[in-house]
């Protein structure tokens, strides 16, 4: 039992350390446009997309657009195709990093002014 307890204790401590590490490396803050220069790496950036600036290249499936919040404007490049419902979006959350004046989004959540539910409340998305 002695040995067992020690092994168990070591495992649990390692597990907790691992958990904390995973927690720190995977948190991603919500930032405003004017904060991108100082802390623009791996962030969530809520934006209002300016639809007349949106361009979509069908061959490379790259979407570029400008978005703004109350602190400023930024150009966003999203290489994964045009998200569903982008045209109707009033608000997007771009997830990614900022470099040299451009925000490179890896993921994008699109919010629509929908009056209707998108899903049941279950796990379904």
């Amino acid at each position, binding site marked *: 039992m002695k040995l*067992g307890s020690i092994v168990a204790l070591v495992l649990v401590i390692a597990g907790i350390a691992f958990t904390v590490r995973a927690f720190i490396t995977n948190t*991603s803050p919500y930032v405003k446009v004017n904060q991108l220069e100082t802390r623009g790496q791996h962030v969530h950036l809520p934006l209002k997309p300016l639809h007349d600036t949106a361009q979509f290249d*069908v061959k490379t499936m790259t979407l570029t657009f400008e978005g703004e919040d109350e602190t400023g404007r930024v150009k966003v490049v999203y290489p994964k195709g045009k998200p569903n419902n982008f045209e109707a979006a009033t608000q997007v959350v771009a997830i990614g990093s900022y470099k040299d004046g451009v925000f490179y989004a890896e993921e994008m*959540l699109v919010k629509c002014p929908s009056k*209707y*539910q998108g899903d049941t409340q279950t796990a379904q*998305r």
Partner: protein
Amino acid sequence: MLAGSITVWIGVFFALASMVLYGLSGKRLSWLRWARGAFVGAFLAIVGAEALLIYALLAGRYDLQYVFSFSEQSLTPLFKVASAWAGQEGSFLLWALWTGIYGMFLMRTAGGYERWVMTFYSGVVLLLMSILAFQSPFAPLPKPDPAPAVWPPQDGFGLNPVLENPWMKIHPPIIFAGFAALAVPFAYALAALWRNEYHEFAVRVRPWAIYATTMLGFGLALGGYWAYETLGWGGFWAWDPVENSSYFPWLFMAAGLHGLMLQINRGRMVRWNPLLLALPFILFLYGTFLTRSGALAEVSVHSFVNMETNALKILMGMLVGSGLLTLGLWGWRYRQMPLPARDMTTGFSREAAVRWGIILLTISALISLIGTSWPLITKAFGKQMEALKPEFYNQVHIPWIVMTAIVLAAAPMLTWRGMSLDQILERLTKSWLAAVATGFVLFFLGFREPITLLICTLVAFTAYANAGAIGRRFRTSRLTLGGFLTHMGLAIAILGLILSYSYERKERVVILQGQDTFAMGYKWRYLGMTGNEKFPGDPLADKFNRVRIEIASHNEKFIVEPRFYQDQRRETGNNVVWPAIIRWWDHDLYVSFFAPPQVDASPLTLTLHEKEKGAVDKYTIEFLGFQTEGAMGGEGFRAIAKARVSHPDWKQPVEVEPFRIVTGGGVVPIPVPLPDGAQILVGRMDVNRRLVEFQLVMVPGKPETAPRWVIPLEVYYKPFTILVWLGPPLTVLGGLLAVVRRARDVKYGVARATLEPFPTPQPKAVKPRGRTSRRPTKPVAAHTAEKPASPEV
């Protein structure tokens, strides 16, 4: 619909009456009969409300807001029924319905606990019905101003096409069966604390705790299948807040049922169990609040409508109230509760394994709970809001899964009394050898990433150890297989999830019409869209449009037909994807889209005012005039732009009437051929300014003007998904077996608990309050069922 609203209010009344009468029936026994009657009344009201809603959906009562929003005439009757849980109101009603059904069973089986359990339980029903009273599925559709000619509308807005698939018919009823079942252990836990009686409680609540865990797990699995089969992002589980908020109650409920196991067999955990059993229900309320209140609006990809204000207030009251009540009662009773038995085991025992299981389940549940709440926590502390990436949950579970696998593998071999390390190692040798062999096989199949391989080997170890236990018991005591079957199924499912996720290969395959693309060892070719026949020009508007793609390698060739549809009735322009999945025994090829199919063409364009003339390339176009046909904006409405086109090579100019037509799927331009094979169509138009953009496509000698489809596919190679389908049914079967076994046990268990309440030293100061058992039960010698599951012999 007035009848519906009245029925809901009748339900509110009866639930209230039931709660009050049950609460007071301690003084006057005759009130008990009235209380039961009131609960039956509440149950009938719920059933009546559900029946009325389904009737309204089937009969097409589009004057009701709910029916208008979630149903339409073209749905099949079964889907009309399924729309009864497509919306928020309907899903609350479904929740209430299951709660009512369980209540009818609970009332009959609670024995001496009936009065207390049913008081709290009726309270839950009361609050659910009150939410429905404020956010009613029977609310009339508000009449717009100015009122349209046809009122009420003849057809509904329709079920969201994302939901229009077979999973919609089974997943919500099952997962709500699980959610609703959480209320029973909650009510039992409060009743036990109130009565200050914990022995009979543990025996009575056990089958319910197992049942709730089983159904919730079943619902979660079905949700995963649904996501995989129809949503097209190539996975079963995404750690979205909506998923998490049913995941952590499930884990806590599982921890609670193992706590009961320790209590009944070893007299441990007596103090913690009431809390553990009440917690899942409270956490589910919290999850419902998170996903319905808009608190996580920026974090979740689910966009939920926020609840009606009063209904939301009731929900929050329910959350805060049940939380405070539980903590308060528990804190009050803590010192009076019986002390846990002293540690009577030595060495490695089943008790230690189960205790570890509870700790691990709790840790995992807490991680998900904190992770999901993290944006709120950071916000509440006035910091910048932070979110956790889904990847967090995958990483963070690595060490805990390793430990859980070891515990789950060892548990079936261990005895309650404990054994030495040598004995265990001896018993585990066979499964361990089999697991190591599996590890080597996986290694040679190319699954080489060390940590993942280690985890897979360990999880396989769990599966083999439990399979061994099942094999040994199958002949003798089939009813005791439940636990092992459950754990084996879980191990298999986890193995499948890890293998199919960690070793998936994902590639983007963009196919151009008329051109072969090579990717993932196959040749890909676009064949066409089935929607083209119904909606020429815009096949994506067909709800059942399938994109036909030929995939070929040197020795095989097949056609896949993923679905893609743009629901243009909704202002959001909802895209609906249904992936195509080709299954082999060892892997799936999963074909989905990462963007809508696009038409790639650069037509020659010319924008003209009415009566204006202009030239593009060698064509000269004169815009002669506008003309409309049909009811303005209605289906079949045409906006025609008459034009005269001339070209130096033609003998004479031609007059054409290209038009745009309003169809069920949106506004579609209809092209008109020109003498040289080119086609003219109407692009953008501004009716007020009489301005039209003409487009010329398929112009001879200009290939860039020929429109062709660009199909942006996302293709996944996912190994061993078969395990994900194999595991959960075993788990559910095992869970149901355990429910049956423990429900049979109740009678003997209660008798035994009254005779000799567990191997537990009772503190002398406390006298149990209330009656122990209302129905006299014959004392039965503690043999048959309550004997702790006999260890391996």
